[in-house]
């Protein structure tokens, strides 16, 4: 055998081995980690109930429904719109495993972009997931996903993404961003179909308030903030005041009219729901971060962000304490409690009363794992 043939065989074997090792990891990422059904969940249905076109696709996702003991208003919580923003997803998980409804109906979609949980963003070096230790000593694992739909499910991206309803153009990779595809359409991409399903659900169930939970990098101007559609402003203002009473500082931003495709704009325009979006500070998705690993996603401590803070480059305070997952989830959950309260005050004939949500201080003291249920 000639020398270059031997080299070719060796390189081919090495490449094959690398493909097998990486392939196993990628396939592993598609496994869906369980969420334990809590005492308040009355029904679990698929999003395809509202748009059958999603049935059997990677975009079809679980919708957890909590019917209250008494009638009232309704509220939708979207977690996992961006699966690389753990506090949005984990807040939804804690709701599912702990919340009960005294009145009204709560809808929770923990994996709004279901496909996005099945992969990581290339060149971001993200961890595959993160672990929590529970009170009984067992552990739970959750996946750290991507900002966008998996290209296995929707590919290729166009050079330029054109938002169907407005003609607005964005970078081509935004085609797979769920929070740029609303209100969605039936003859669009898989991501747009998922958006359409969520919009249809809001319309069919006449959901009064829709809250989309997100995280942002600390250098991003809209952070630790609520972004509200103009019709949602009165309720959102009450929430800001309510949180201030609990010493949680949060900003309030109007939904820009010229930035299309996002929940706080399109759901508010296309349906009667009051649409809001919330952001917490997540250094593991930022551009200024140091080493990227599970600890960064959970503890939110980063030396380079401290340096950036000293340079005045951030829009959120950042010191040695970082921004732990308990702080970020605590902010989201506290705001959700305030939203329920504000909706009940604004619309007293349609109360929304949620119980069982861990309070901000409790989460900081006991840790998030204390509020996760052990797997059976």
């Amino acid at each position: 055998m000639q020398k270059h043939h031997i080299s070719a065989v060796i390189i081919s074997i090495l490449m094959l081995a690398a493909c097998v090792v990486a392939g196993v990891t990628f396939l592993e990422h598609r496994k869906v980690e369980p969420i334990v059904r809590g005492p308040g969940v009355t029904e679990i249905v698929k999003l395809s109930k509202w748009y059958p076109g999603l049935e059997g696709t990677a975009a079809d996702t679980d919708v957890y429904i909590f019917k209250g003991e008494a009638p009232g208003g309704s509220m939708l919580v979207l977690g996992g719109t961006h699966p690389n923003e753990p506090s949005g997803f984990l807040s939804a998980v804690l709701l599912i495993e702990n919340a009960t409804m005294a009145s009204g109906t709560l809808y929770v979609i923990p994996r709004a972009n279901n496909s996005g949980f099945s992969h990581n963003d290339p060149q971001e070096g993200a961890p595959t997931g993160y672990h929590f230790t529970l009170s009984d000593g067992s552990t739970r694992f959750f996946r750290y996903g991507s900002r966008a739909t998996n290209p296995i499910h929707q590919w290729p991206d166009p050079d330029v993404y054109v938002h169907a309803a407005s003609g607005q153009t964005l970078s081509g990779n935004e085609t797979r961003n769920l929070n740029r595809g609303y209100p969605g359409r039936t003859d669009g991409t898989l991501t747009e179909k998922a958006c359409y399903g969520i919009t249809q659900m809001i319309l069919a169930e006449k959901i009064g308030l829709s809250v989309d939970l997100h995280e942002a990098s600390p250098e991003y101007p809209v952070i630790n903030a609520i972004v509200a559609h103009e019709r949602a402003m009165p309720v959102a203002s009450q929430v800001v005041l309510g949180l201030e009473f609990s010493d949680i500082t949060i900003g309030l931003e109007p939904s820009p009219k010229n930035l299309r495709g996002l929940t706080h704009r399109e759901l508010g325009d296309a349906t009667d729901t009051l649409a809001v979006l919330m952001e917490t500070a997540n250094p593991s998705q930022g551009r200024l971060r140091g080493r990227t690993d599970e600890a960064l996603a959970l503890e939110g401590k980063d030396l380079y962000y401290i340096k950036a803070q000293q340079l005045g480059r951030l829009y959120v305070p950042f010191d040695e304490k970082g921004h732990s997952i308990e702080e970020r989830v605590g902010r989201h959950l506290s705001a959700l409690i305030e939203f329920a309260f504000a909706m009940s005050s604004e619309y007293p004939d349609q109360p929304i009363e949620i119980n069982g949500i861990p309070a901000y201080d409790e989460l900081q003291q006991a840790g998030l794992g204390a509020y996760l249920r052990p797997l059976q």
Partner: protein
Amino acid sequence: MPFEFILFIAMVGVFVVCAFAIKLPVSLSMLAASVAGLLVSGNGLGIRHLVEGTFGYVDTILVIATAMIFMRAVQESGALDALNIVIIKRFKSIPALLLPMLMLVAMFPGMITGSSSASVLTAGAVVAPVLILLGLPVAKAGAFIALAGILGMIAPPVNIPAMIIGGGIDMPFVGFELPLLLLTIPPAIVFALVLGLKHVKKVSWEEIAPKLEVETYKRYGPRLFIPILVVATLMVLGKTVPKYFGMGLPLMFLIGAALALFAGKRFNPLVAAKAAVADALPVLGILAGVGMFIQVMTLTGVRGFIVVNALSVPPVMLYVAIAVTIPLFGAVSSFGASSVLGVPFLLALLGKNQIVTAAALSLIASLGDFMPPTALSAIFAAQVVGIKKYSKVLKYLIIPSIVILAWALVFIAYSKQIAALY
């Protein structure tokens, strides 16, 4: 000394040793540097990261490979020679008009696709032989189409670096047309004239005719140009009616290549495709290596170290930091530089007009396509004009790059005044 700095030095050191001392290909040197980064940072072999990093360039790799097949097919069919004849016959007596026009022709695919490689490998490959016939030295012809590549990539209607930078602060790609035209068209005209005018004499058809292969054009006529026209039309339709024609560049190029089989001289498609991919393979390998390198830099914190240090300069030095770090980081990827450095710098310049500033930053980011080791635009330009060492092309790109930097910085400094003009 921060650990990330030591890691960075280790990765760059391994790359330099592999590329220059052991003389491994650039792609394998990037792989070795990435593995070194993984090992030193305690991430083991991290095979998942090596593979995942390369996936960031799958689409780019497909575009380049199919563009090369298309160009080889068009060349084999005789269409390139025929096009040279048509252009020279028509414009031989007015070089001052011919040169900027050729620059715009070479920029066109980049304007439509947002890819400098698409420009250089398609229209660049058409324009370069004409420039050489008109008297430009081969390396200068390469520099001409390389510049057309990056200016086309930045010129409207499609500018992906600007979209990436804007996307980082939720700014839609709206209102960019005029600043991008102002940023790209004046330099394009100036560079076309400066590079070519003194070489382009008034060409006599009788002098040139013997050098041209006229038989193919005589035999097949304008039908030779059908593949080029179809691809150009599909590119435009892909943008104007994406619902029906948004098929993506790779498929457009393959359709063009298939048409070339029937438009002119007969050729063996398998041999042509194999030769085209063999030509592109070193660059495709570099892209895969760069993907791994970026992933490991991000994973280990080297990226954060670089970005935060770039932002650490005093405000007066901010412009210097922009001028130095964005093109340097562009050595690994101009799109990567747009995202990793373009967004933080735009945030650091929030007091400026955001559209003009983002547009100018995108122009600076495009210079990454001239920066070794990837230097996509320069490498492809050298390949198109038939030069083995792309450094010969690069030599003629240094001064234009400085001019482009200065031009873009002026736009940033006076962004509000420029925005007030329109």
